[in-house]
């Protein structure tokens, strides 16, 4: 019944336009092109994005399955993106100054008698045992020693409890995705979108007009235009659910420092006025300082970052704003938003790339026909929203559970 709502009905999708390159746009392009290779699908990426330079990202373990599905082997991925291994995040000064804890990607301890391990650790602590919880995590212990090996496939080995992901350089990663996408037949157009033609009858996008005058039609549109959200936000007028009431940080300073022989982990340090993240890459260290623009001006933030990260004054920096939250719909009509065009959550738990990857895996497992049945969009929206809310709650917990009371932040 729903399939009859659109002319073209249940014909397969034959053309896709992705607005925006960068990590999101090129990852989307390669995912779709690879999944539907050899089916004559025409994919265009409208890419006028400048390099983001200083940016790096930490990924979650879903990244391994994601790249495996694309047929991108780990060695070349790591070589070409300056990647390092990551076993978790070291949080410093978060509960109170001087205190640390480690959030490993793998589990803590093992259940005893069907009771989850954390209950035993809690009892031991009540009885006066000062052992930190992270001493029960192999990921944490290995990260502390700066060691790494791949997990064992033997379930009886303690090494099978290692769970890992990567740190990646954003520009290098986008370039690698672009290379694979182009090898799979994706076309890049260097242009900007100047107008979007939306069908009044059903809210589907018919075509885009570019600043070079070209007019492009497609069956499916992917909005990877970042904060601008050119299609979903601007053209389709899908609103934004703002979560800054709970997560008030709204600006980030990015910088870069020399590579060190760093441990396989992300570092996050809370300071009075925000928090600092350090991502070790093969060729450099990427730094981010996340803060609230109402409490701190940009110069103070740059200052705070350079102090915390031990960077030389006058190092190159980049400042950008963001709003924690998400589009009210991630999929509307024949348009799907991915990456920051869909929503943004501060990178405290490194969810951004994982949200992109799981969104793409979901999209590929429910790839529509031209009718873009609203049931599929509903399902996609429900599951995606649940992911965002789950991460939001986890992020809020970091702020709520702090014992720090010395600053308004």
């Amino acid at each position, binding site marked *: 019944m729903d399939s009859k709502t659109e002319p073209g009905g249940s014909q*397969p999708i034959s053309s896709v336009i992705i607005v925006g390159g960068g990590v999101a746009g090129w990852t989307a392009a390669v995912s779709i092109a690879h999944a539907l290779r050899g089916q004559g699908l025409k994919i265009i990426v409208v890419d006028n994005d400048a390099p983001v330079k200083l940016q790096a990202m930490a990924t979650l373990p879903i990244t391994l399955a994601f790249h495996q599905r694309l047929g991108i082997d780990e060695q070349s991925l790591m070589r070409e993106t300056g990647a390092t291994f990551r076993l978790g995040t070291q949080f410093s000064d978060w509960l109170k100054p001087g205190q640390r804890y480690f959030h490993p990607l793998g589990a803590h301890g093992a259940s005893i008698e069907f009771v989850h391990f954390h209950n035993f650790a809690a009892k031991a602590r009540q009885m006066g045992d000062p052992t930190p919880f992270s001493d029960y995590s192999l990921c944490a212990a290995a990260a502390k020693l700066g060691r790494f090996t791949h997990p064992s496939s033997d379930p009886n080995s303690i090494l099978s409890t290692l769970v890992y992901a990567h740190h990646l350089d954003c520009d290098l990663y986008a370039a690698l995705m672009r290379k694979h996408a182009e090898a799979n037949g994706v076309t890049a157009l260097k242009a900007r979108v100047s107008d979007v033609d939306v069908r009044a009858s059903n809210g589907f996008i018919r075509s885009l007009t570019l600043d070079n005058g070209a007019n492009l039609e497609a069956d499916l549109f992917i909005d990877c235009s970042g904060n601008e959200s050119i299609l979903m936000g601007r053209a389709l007028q899908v609103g934004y659910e703002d979560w800054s009431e709970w997560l008030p940080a709204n600006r980030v300073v990015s910088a870069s420092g020399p590579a060190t022989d760093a441990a396989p982990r992300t570092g996050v340090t809370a300071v009075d006025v925000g928090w600092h993240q350090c991502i070790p890459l093969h060729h450099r260290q990427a730094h981010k300082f996340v803060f609230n623009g109402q409490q701190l001006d940009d110069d103070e933030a740059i200052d705070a970052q350079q102090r915390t990260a031990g960077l030389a004054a006058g190092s190159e920096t980049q400042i950008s704003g963001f709003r924690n939250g998400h589009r009210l719909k991630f999929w509307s009509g024949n348009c799907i938003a991915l990456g920051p065009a869909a929503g943004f959550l501060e990178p405290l738990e490194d969810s951004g790339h994982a949200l992109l990857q799981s969104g793409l895996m979901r999209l590929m497992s429910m790839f529509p026909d031209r009718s873009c049945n609203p049931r599929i969009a509903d399902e996609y929206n429900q599951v995606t929203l649940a992911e965002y809310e789950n991460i939001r709650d986890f992020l809020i917990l970091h702020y709520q559970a702090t014992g720090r009371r010395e600053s308004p932040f």
Partner: protein
Amino acid sequence: MNRGRLEKIVIVGGGTAGWMTAAAFARCLDPKQYAVKLVESDLIGIIGVGEATIPAIREFNHFLGLDEKEFMSKTQATFKLGIEFRNWGRQEESYIHPFAPFGQAINGVGFHHYWLKMRQGGDTASFEDYSLPIWAARSGKFDYPSLDPRSPLSTYDYAFHFDAGLYAVYLRAWSEQRGIVRIEGKVIEVTQHNESGFVESITLESGQRIDGDLFIDCTGFRGLLIEQTLNTGFEDWSHWLPCDRAVAVPSENVGEPVPHTRATALTAGWQWRIPLQHRTGNGHVYCSEYISDDEAVHMVLDNIEGATIAEPRLLRFRTGKRKKSWHKNCVAIGLSGGFLEPLESTAIYLIQSAIMKLIRSFPDAGFNAVEAEEFNRQMDTKFGQVRNLLILHYKETQRDDSSFWDYCRNMSIPEELEHRKQLFRHHGQVAYKKSDLFNEPSWLAVYIGQGVVPEHYDPRVNNVSESEIRQRLAQIRQIIQHSAASLPSHASTIARHCAAEVMAA
């Protein structure tokens, strides 16, 4: 608020729910710290009929540390590979819902999409041809799954049919050995705290008063504590699942027991057939609005193979769920918490699930509301999941041979189920979430079995050439038939591992 440990636990009601709860407490609550009493009356019968289960029961038995073979022989148990549904989508049709995936995903895309494509191209192989346990079940074969993950014989799971009355007896002995105190008697009075309304004590006919900090209501449909005392309220689902009565009658075995439950749709309900070692359990679940009790009894007797060995027993019920399974200091486990007809063999699972959730969020004497809320939320989810799959059986039918089926075909269904169904019908997508009780293969078995076949398959299927798909599918069918044929018969596996003592049927 008193955050101290609660000490006195009273389970009211024996039966399957009561003794499963008692056994779990015996297993994990230190008798030096907790006094657990179970009160049951010898005069009040238990509902437990021949019971069919899903594989989760093995986790519960493993948690208790029961020896599986001993458990089977003590409860006259047989193995179960799935449920056969006869005459549901249409008359004269049959399908099996197994505990195993169908076929094998190819390039990360679900198997059913490949099957769909070939079917659209005229291939006539049935979806069941890609399930090893269905082949085994239909030919009366069973063996334990292989532990070698490379073997096709490792791909299925199994459950049991057993006598729930004997299971309660077995767990009673097991629990009493481990410090659970059984008190015989009928409850005549329940005392509540003046202000909080918490249950403080129960008084028996003998005059004995039993105090408790935590009460578990296992009193069956009536809900002596949760409803008759605490007035918790009931959410009625009979507009979706209109059957409200059952008649149960055991019969003698005819031939070897089959390794599957059978549910045969009739004109105003359905009939179960549960094979045990010593007898066969039969029953007719029906809707009293469309058929009289007498007709219902006749119908079940007409469809039984062996001679009956007891008078038919009539049960009345209302499908739905207690508004809160955990209210104040009382937790309802079993029929007191809610009732769903046994079409998908979930009764014992719902008991087990409540027990394990209670243990995981075990309260202290302060009874923090968060624990009860989370427990109730999770139980609501479980009941809702079972309910929706049950509704699908009734709704997705082409039967038009009675006004009962006309009602079912035309009734409105919960929005969540409608959404799932449309998604599958249009797109072959099983909206499966991690917390779902029934996983993707279960939904596939029921959808396709009931005649819901997707219009479109996943376009990634087209990355594999038709000749390769044809070859892979033929290979899977061949391996399955070959492996199923290599299995021993169900009866011989029982005889070898877990034969029960011969007892009067």
